[in-house]
């Protein structure tokens, strides 16, 4: 099932075309294509070009700082890192069960995050491709163009995102990089004024989320053949699942299924994820390539995120979203649920689910409770997992007797999708670009495939790297500031 375009036999004879930077995604990445003299694509790669060093520089920091530090991995989904790290640190302080108030506040924050991130991705970043066409005019292909052509769609997008951000502000203290989740619980509850502030808009938010699902479906229907086949490939899947099989984006056990629907493991405690998930490194990307250990690096790569979660859960525990899930799975004989562009539709179903969950939680008086924190017996190791907007997120730490972090391993959502995104661009390269004279519009098709995954290339670049070359950086006055690294 893996396509052949990863490595061309004689790259030196080929022409290089780069899409750099990939735009309307979060983070820093590029795609390179190698093309022969007859315009056939011989190689296509998605490169993650930056490294940050989080896993290394959190070492030596006190463990309670970590949930606040690590969210600086990503400003689009900081709550995911804030919470995954908090869950790991709950383990460190020996807490397996939070108070109801703490758990529900964290959940509320998380569903606010899902709502705002999915709205941002669909409306601000991807809708221009979907509404105007993949090869449409560059100048119009952005949220400003959408605001001019479809003012209602743009406005709802902006207000949906705003609402999610408000949920985060009220629960976390700030819209971006809040501070309320702490090892063992939270440091703030909700006041009844804050609850009323959020309650007053939740019904239009649910209504607009339903309209967004309908829009995603309509786009699919209007161009069924293309939406079904665009960048399509088969892949194994991974997600967290609640004990009764329901979608649960905050907590659960691991469910992995193979391409042909066989269960590889299910309801597996994520505490020992490394028994199932290993990573491979390739020379041309700073992002690693995870795979199921049971199946090996060649065949064991998989897909995570909305498409996987919506199609692999047994049900969604809120009524509107579950109804939409069933429609999605039944649509066109189940085809949409395996399509790369099916990600958009599934993402909108999850946004609706998040809105419904927020409504449910806001009616729960536990949010106003006073009992915020628990403590237990200190442990050495903590693993925290969550379903972030883009997929399964793993945080893993060891803390020494002085309360300092001594080891950290983070496998972020986008990293799980690394091979899948490479497959998608290779598929699109053979479907649309091969043998053609490349135009800007055609190249955007490649980006449309990458965008479907809503990659967070800034999260995915947390590892440190170094290149075997030397270069000097000079300041505005010509003084030597830095030397680029030499080989270790």
């Amino acid at each position, binding site marked *: 099932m893996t396509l052949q375009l990863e490595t061309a036999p004689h790259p030196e004879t080929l022409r290089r075309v780069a899409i750099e930077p990939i735009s309307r995604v*979060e983070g820093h990445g590029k795609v390179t294509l190698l093309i022969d003299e007859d315009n056939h694509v011989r190689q296509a790669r998605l490169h993650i070009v930056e490294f940050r060093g989080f896993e290394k*520089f959190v070492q030596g920091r006190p463990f309670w700082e970590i949930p606040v530090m690590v969210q600086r991995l990503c*400003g689009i989904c900081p709550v995911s890192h804030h919470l995954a790290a908090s869950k790991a640190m709950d383990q460190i302080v020996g807490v397996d069960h939070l108070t109801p108030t703490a758990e529900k506040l964290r959940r509320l924050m998380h569903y606010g995050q899902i709502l705002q991130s999915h709205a941002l991705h669909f409306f601000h970043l991807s809708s221009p491709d979907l509404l105007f066409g993949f090869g449409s005019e560059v100048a119009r292909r952005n949220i400003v163009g959408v605001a001019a052509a479809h003012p209602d769609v743009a406005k709802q997008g902006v207000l949906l995102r*705003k609402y999610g951000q408000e949920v985060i502000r009220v629960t976390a203290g700030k819209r971006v990089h809040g501070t309320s989740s702490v090892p063992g619980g939270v440091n703030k509850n909700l006041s009844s004024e804050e609850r009323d502030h959020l309650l007053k808009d939740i019904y239009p938010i649910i209504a607009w989320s339903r309209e967004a699902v309908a829009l995603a479906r309509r786009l699919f229907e209007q161009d069924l053949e293309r939406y079904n086949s665009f960048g399509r490939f088969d892949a194994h899947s991974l997600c967290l699942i609640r004990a009764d099989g329901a979608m649960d984006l905050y907590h659960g056990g691991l469910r992995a299924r193979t391409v042909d629907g066989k269960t590889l493991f299910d309801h597996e405690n994520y505490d020992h994820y490394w028994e199932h998930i290993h990573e491979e490194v390739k020379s041309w990307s700073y992002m690693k390539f995870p795979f199921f250990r049971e199946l090996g690096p060649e065949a064991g790569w998989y897909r995570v995120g909305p498409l996987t979660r919506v199609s692999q859960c047994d049900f969604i525990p809120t009524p509107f979203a579950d109804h939409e899930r069933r429609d999605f799975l039944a649509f066109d004989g189940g085809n949409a649920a395996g399509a790369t562009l099916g990600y958009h539709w599934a993402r909108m179903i999850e946004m609706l689910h998040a809105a419904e969950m927020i409504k449910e939680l806001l009616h729960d008086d536990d949010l106003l409770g006073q009992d915020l924190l628990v403590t237990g017996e200190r442990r050495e190791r903590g693993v925290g997992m969550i379903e972030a907007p883009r997929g399964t997120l793993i945080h893993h730490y060891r803390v020494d007797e002085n309360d300092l972090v001594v080891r950290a391993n983070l496998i972020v959502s986008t990293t799980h999708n690394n091979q899948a995104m490479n497959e998608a661009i290779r598929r699109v390269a053979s479907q649309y670009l091969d043998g053609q004279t490349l135009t800007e519009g055609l190249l955007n098709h490649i980006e449309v495939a990458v965008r479907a995954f809503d990659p967070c290339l800034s999260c995915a670049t947390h590892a440190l790297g170094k290149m075997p070359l030397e270069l000097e950086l000079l300041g*505005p006055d010509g003084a030597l500031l830095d030397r680029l690294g030499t080989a270790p």
Partner: protein
Amino acid sequence: MPKLKVATTSLAGCFGCHMSLLDIDERLFPLLDLIEFDRSPLTDIKHCGPCDIGIVEGGICNAENVHVLREFRANCKTLIAIGACAVTGGLPAQRNHLDLGACLSEVYLTEGGLEHGLIPNDPELPLPLDKVHPLHEVVKVDYFIPGCPPSADAIWKFLTDLIAGRTPKLGHGLIKYD
């Protein structure tokens, strides 16, 4: 009045400052009557053209960042460093006391759960710098907005002042350093 051209980019940052810009919410629409986006993560313009205002998030961690920053400086009449990372290097600069070689081998060679460990070294990957630098060490910067990220209200006040031709002033309550 012709619209002002504004370019934005994220270098070694987390996009949180861009998120805070979008947190002006529906004020985005009146803003779009006054400005036009050039290169930005929100558009598909890949290189910065002549602009009135350039907004840069994130510090400098590799050769490509340097290149993009210089392109912004050459094209933007006013260059703004937005957020802690751009102003001081921010959280990513916590790696500045570490040896890159050692980190690299830990992450790509010796970490648990690795198969085929190797250090990425393809020419397509931009050269990393030994240290993360703030913007003003590499180019002249006209304005600095602190905060991680600065709030939407701070960004709104700053931009509307600048666009109206006033000297931007962030009063008490809008300047924050977290």
